[in-house]
Each structure stands twice: as C-alpha cells, then as structure tokens.
C-alpha cells in the first residue's frame, strides 16, 4: 500500500508540472498585470514609476524566466509574497482558508447525510410519489443560480424575518468567547450553508439514488434477504456499504473543494473566506497569491484522486493496491 501511494505520488509529478505550466500561462497571459490593475487609472502615477514597480516585481522578465523563478521558489517551499496583502502567500491562504473550510466542511457533512437519506429512501421506493417529490425538490434546489438563491435567502431570512444575520462570520462589537463564539459563528453560517447545501445536494442525491438502485438489485442483497435478515440490516449493512463504494471517488474529489472556497456565496454572505480573496486576487492580478493558491488546489485535487483510489482500496477488499 505504501509503495502504491509512493508510486502514485511520483506519477503525479508530471501532472503537477503540467498544471503549474497551465496555471502560470493562464494567469500571466491574461491581459493586464498587477501594476495596471492597481495603478492603471491613477493619474498621479508616472509611467516611470510603473516600470520601476514592474522591475521590482519581476513582471518585465520573459515568461520562461518568470516561470523558472516562480517554480524554483516553490520547490524551495516559498510561494512568494502576495502583492495585495504584502505578506507571504502561505500566510494569506492560512488566514482565510480555514474560514472557507468550516463552511464547506459543514456543507459536505449535511449534503452527504441528506443525500444518503434521500437516496436510500428513493431507492427503496423507486417511482413512488415520494421518490418523484424528492426528485422534484432536488431539481428545484439545484436550479437557481447561486447568487440568486443566496440573495433570496438573505432577503427572506435576514432582511424580512431577521432570523439570521446579514452576513459576516461573527457578530461585531459583542466579544464572544468559547461556546458562545461557536454558537455565534454557527448562526452566521446558517444561510451560506443552506445555500451551498441546496445547490450541491442535487447531484449527489442522484448519484446516491443510482448507486443504491444498482446495488439493491445485486445477488448478494437477495442473499441477505434470503438469510432472513431485518430490512434495515440488509439496507445499511449490505446495500449501503456497497453503494458507497463508487461514491468514494466523488467524496475524495470534493476534498479540494473544502479548501477552495465558494466564491460567489462567500461574496454574497460577506464570508471572510478564501474564495472572495482569490476572486479579488484574480481581478487584481496578484500573481503570487492566485497562482500559488490555484496550484495548491490543483495539487489537492491530484492528491484527492490518489486518496480516492487509496480509500477505494481500503473500503473495497476486492481492490488491493500493490
């Protein structure tokens, strides 16, 4: 197993290099640069000063050289300094990523619980009215653009009924400690979590449903019934476990999503997450930040892929990685 993981890691190096090249090209070839983005319209700033700054930031070097410098530093563990935040990229990411993480992690848990429940019952009651209602609800939930759903919820629950706060992550001016702080954050999380869960629940529920329907037809489920086991034992112990196998990949692929932040939702709910920061960094051409972070997510995605296969091997005794 260890050997398998090491091999997969080694194999992923070309992919990471490829990703880094594409990331680098995508961002550097995008029109404009940090100087133009920041000072393009500053009528006081002279062209000379702009060129000086480009020189200082190394933006006027040829692309291959810039790439070599960037990657060279990254290999040494240095992701560079964010132009916008004037501090190391890793610090910036570290500051914001965990805020995104708690949001996404909560959504992940809710989404999987709900999808499992919905999927199981739909699978057992395939084509019943219940199944169709659930299907319809799921489709409705996933059929609005995220910003619209977010604003709608904000308007209903924060502006009209004032059940939830108007965004942000904690109450300002009321210092909460310990449990009170956690409760405060949870209260602030409610709306973004609902938004993201509604949007993401659709796909997963369908997968769950399909997977369960597939498994429930298998011979070993019939065997389990033939053994006279209770229905819930058959469903949870025999069917669900197997239905989850193909979903492991899905789960592992969602892991990078835990760290990448939900750009639009964070923006609408003024959530201090990494998504908002990246969006800003893209628009401001904060190359070290946006390239470093994108590379980080890419690596996570690739690791997620490996993790998916490893988990698969752990969960499914038929798959043994050597």
């Amino acid at each position, binding site marked *: 197993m260890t050997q398998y993981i090491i091999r997969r890691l080694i194999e992923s190096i070309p992919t990471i290099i490829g990703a880094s090249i594409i990331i680098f090209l995508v961002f550097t070839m995008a029109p404009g640069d940090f100087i133009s983005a920041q000072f393009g319209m500053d009528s006081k700033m002279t062209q000379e000063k702009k060129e000086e700054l480009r020189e200082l930031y190394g933006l006027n070097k040829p692309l291959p050289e810039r790439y070599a410098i960037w990657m060279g530093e990254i290999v040494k563990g240095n992701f560079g300094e964010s132009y916008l935040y004037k501090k190391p990229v890793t610090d910036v990411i570290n500051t914001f990523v965990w805020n995104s993480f708690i949001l996404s992690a909560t959504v992940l848990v809710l989404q999987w619980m709900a999808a499992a429940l919905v999927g199981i019952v739909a699978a057992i009651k395939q084509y019943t009215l219940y199944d169709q209602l659930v299907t319809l609800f799921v489709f409705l939930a996933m059929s609005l653009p995220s910003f619209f759903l977010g604003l709608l919820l904000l308007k209903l629950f924060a502006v009209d009924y004032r059940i939830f706060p108007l965004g942000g992550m904690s109450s300002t001016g009321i210092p909460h400690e310990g449990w009170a702080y956690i409760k405060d954050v949870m209260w602030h999380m409610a709306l973004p979590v609902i938004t993201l869960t509604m949007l993401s629940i659709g796909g997963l529920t369908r997968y769950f449903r399909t997977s369960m329907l597939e498994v429930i037809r298998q011979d070993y*489920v019939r065997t389990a019934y033939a053994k006279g086991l209770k229905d819930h034992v058959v469903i949870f112990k025999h069917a669900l476990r197997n239905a989850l196998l193909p979903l492991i990949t899905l789960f592992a692929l969602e892991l990078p999503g835990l760290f990448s932040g939900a750009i639009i939702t964070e923006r609408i709910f003024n959530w201090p997450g990494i998504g908002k920061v990246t969006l800003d960094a893209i628009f401001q051409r904060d190359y070290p930040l946006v390239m470093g972070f994108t590379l980080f997510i*890419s690596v996570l*995605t690739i690791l997620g892929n490996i993790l998916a296969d490893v988990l698969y091997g752990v969960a499914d005794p038929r798959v043994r990685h050597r």
Partner: protein
Amino acid sequence: MTVQPEALKSSGQNSKMRSKKVDSPWRSAFRRLLKNKFAITAFIVLIFMFLFSFVGPYFSPYKDAKISVRDQYKPPSAEHWLGTDQLGRDVVLRLMEAGQISLLVGLAATGIIVLIGVTVGLLAGFYGGWIDTILMRFADIMYAIPTLPLLITFGAILSDLKFPPDQRIYLIMFVIGVISWMGLSRLVRSQILSLKEQEFMLATEALGLSDRRKIFSHLLPNVVPIIIVSGTLGVAGAILLESSLSFLGLGVIPPTPSWGQMLSSANNMIDFAKRPWLWIPPGVAILITVVSINVIGDGLRDALDPKMKR
C-alpha cells in the same frame, strides 16, 4: 433483488419477428420516454420556453432595446405586463430576448463540451497507450485547475483576440465549453473501455474492420446515450454557469440580455423588495427551464438505459 424471468432478456419470438415494424433501440427508448409523463411535461414546458423566447418577440408591441429612461422602473401594468427596467424597457420583451441568449448559450456550450469531451474520450479509450496517458493527464490537469479562475482569465485572453464584440456571446459559450469537457471525456473513455471488453468489439477486430468503422459504427453509437444524457444536463449547467458569470460581470454585454444578466442586474435588496417584476420573471424562467431540462435528462437516462428501469 430483482428476479426476472430469464427469457425476458430475449423478447424475440417467432410470432413477433414476423411483424413488420423495426424496433430500434432508439425507438424503444423513445417509447419509454413517452411513458414518462414527468419528462413529457418538462418537454412541453421547454418547448414553450423556446417558443416564448424565439417567437414571442414578434408579438410584442415594443421594439427591440427601445430605451426610455424616464419610464424606468414602472411596475406591471396593462401596457407593460411585467413592468419596465432601469432603462424603461419592457421586461416581457427583455425576457424573451434574454431567453434566446440563455438557451443559445446552453445549447452551444454543450455542443462544444460534447465535441471536445467525446473526441478526447473516444481517442483516449480506443487507442489507449501513450495517447490515453497524454490526453487523460491533460484532462486531469484541466480538472485540477479551479473553474472560475480559468473562466475569468480565458475570457480575458480571448477578448484580446479582436473578437467581434457582438459575437462575444459565442466566446462565452466557447469558454464554458473549453473548461467543462473533462467530465464527459472521462465518462466516454470509461464507457469505451468497457465496450472494448464486449465480444462484439472483439468481433470487429476478427472481421478485420478498420479503426474508423470501429469508432464510428460501433463505439460512437453506443456512447450516444450517455452523451445525450450528460449533454442534456450540461445545457442546464451552462445556463446556470452563464448566469453566475453575468453576476461576476463576465457574461453577456448589455444591452444584450440573458436571464442571468437580468437577474444579476437586480441583485440588490431594494430591487428585491420594491421591484419584484425585475427578478421574479427571469428567476422563474431560469428555474423552470433548468428544472425541465434536468427532468428531461433524468427521463432520458431512464429511457436510454433500460437497466435502470424494470
């Protein structure tokens, strides 16, 4: 725990064989689809949305993009059924024109996704070896890079290419397509790999058929169902993605409307509170279109994949 009487697998019977009608897998899928009232309803709704968007404007008393700033923000009335917007334009007409764009974006983006995704998946799955490695690694890389940054910068890069501004909408479709083909290509590839294991593919080799024939006559028709299903769902995804792009200011250019653009231009609490006619119509239009497409996609999945059915 489905137990089927075995011979059901072969519904062929002498008496039946003599009947004249050709029962192609497509036709039987279509028959199954027709039985799905859910999907049929969705289909009718979708047709309605198409008619509304493409034929509707001919029945509108208002002219395209007629601006009358002093008539801004009129609530619904007999004159303007859904009121007017910020520039005094008739919302009904805007809704129709926006529908054209949104539906077109969905269809065209999906077309590109299908084109790239299927080509890559087919080639990778069929030839295997280093072609497979390179293509799939590339897909991995594309997959690993977050979508939104790609979209933003792709859009910016492409807008540098002196693209006629009026046709920038096609650029958006193209970009959406270019960054979303990976899922489909993986799907197609895995399908091809499993088809290659089937004896009929072994047979094509034994018969000495050319690669072209193997791909186009044998593999492609068998992946068409998943292409149709994922394509259908892709249309819905593209419509939603376009609206999110509009929210970020990367979608269509005013005065060209899209439903997403209409929605996002009413994205403040005041419009939400005071001028529901600005956001409810495009919101509902997106909602029912996307739901319809998803329901149809779901229905197609059931119809085209009889394994999922009883």
